[in-house]
């Protein structure tokens, strides 16, 4: 199941808070031929209900709570993140990923099970790489999309199961996740 949320390039306009991408923007992006252009082009799919997202109602409630100042204060103190993250990954551990993955401008990173974007957005912001986030809970992806825009990070946030990544073969320069695998 694919449930595209947004496709926003560095310096471009936000498509809006709704779940449907701007079809005119998608058509413009399809003219490109790079890997990131191709990843963006999969947004040219009519949004469909993501059945498994119904199983994540608790996550949606969780993400709403994480915006409270006390939750942000605790998260910052514990991991150094302020993304509303549920993983145990600290800032030092995130920076270790950047080194292991060889992230740099021009590279394309996939962070699956991304939640609200920690540590994927941090990695993209600090290294200059482009980013694709995937997860099922929509509330986290909405926050991630907003944060990508605020941090001027190039990339996409897609609602999709990690086991059925709706992405073309051999397009990513690196893949990561934090406390997701089973």
């Amino acid at each position, binding site marked *: 199941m694919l449930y595209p949320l947004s496709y926003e390039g560095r310096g471009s306009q936000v498509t809006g808070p709704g779940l449907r991408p701007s079809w005119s923007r998608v058509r413009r992006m399809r003219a490109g031929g790079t890997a990131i252009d191709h990843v963006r082009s999969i947004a040219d799919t009519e949004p469909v209900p993501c059945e498994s997202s119904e199983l994540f109602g608790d996550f949606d409630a969780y993400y709403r709570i994480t915006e*409270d100042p006390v939750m942000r204060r605790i998260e910052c103190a514990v991991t150094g993140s302020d993304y509303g993250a549920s993983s145990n990954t600290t800032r030092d551990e995130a920076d270790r990923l950047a080194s292991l993955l060889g992230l740099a401008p021009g590279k394309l990173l996939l962070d699956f099970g991304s939640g609200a974007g920690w540590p994927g957005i941090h990695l993209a912001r600090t290294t200059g790489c482009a980013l694709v986030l995937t997860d099922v809970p929509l509330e986290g992806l909405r926050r991630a999309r907003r944060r990508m825009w605020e941090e001027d990070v190039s990339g996409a946030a897609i609602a999709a199961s990690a086991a059925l990544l709706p992405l073309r073969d051999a397009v990513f320069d690196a*893949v990561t996740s934090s406390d997701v695998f089973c």
Partner: protein
Amino acid sequence: MLRACNRVLKPGAPLAFYVVAVSDGLSSGDTARAIEAGPPHVDARASYRELVEAAGFVDVEVVDVTDDYAATMSKAIRMRGEASVELGELIGSDRYVEGQASRRRELDAIRGGLLRRFLISTARP
């Protein structure tokens, strides 16, 4: 998931991830206790090195970061304890108490050797 990661990576490109896992070599009772205390996705079907290699990856390196996991969990419990009044108002006292108890069970399982956390790095051939 690992096979999907392999498919979307360019040849030679890296995968690196953190994961919580049940310790190897536990009795069935301790394995059940680890799964009960651990995060929702934790499982004990096979070692992650084996899973990663079975998905077609090479040059697998596994670093044990369990001490950091314990330190992070301990700090989370302490910070939430210091904000108990605010959290009780935000999420309700019952849910706050339940959450703290769950984190303490997880920390006990980490310190008791039932749960571990790894940084796994590898690459597509």
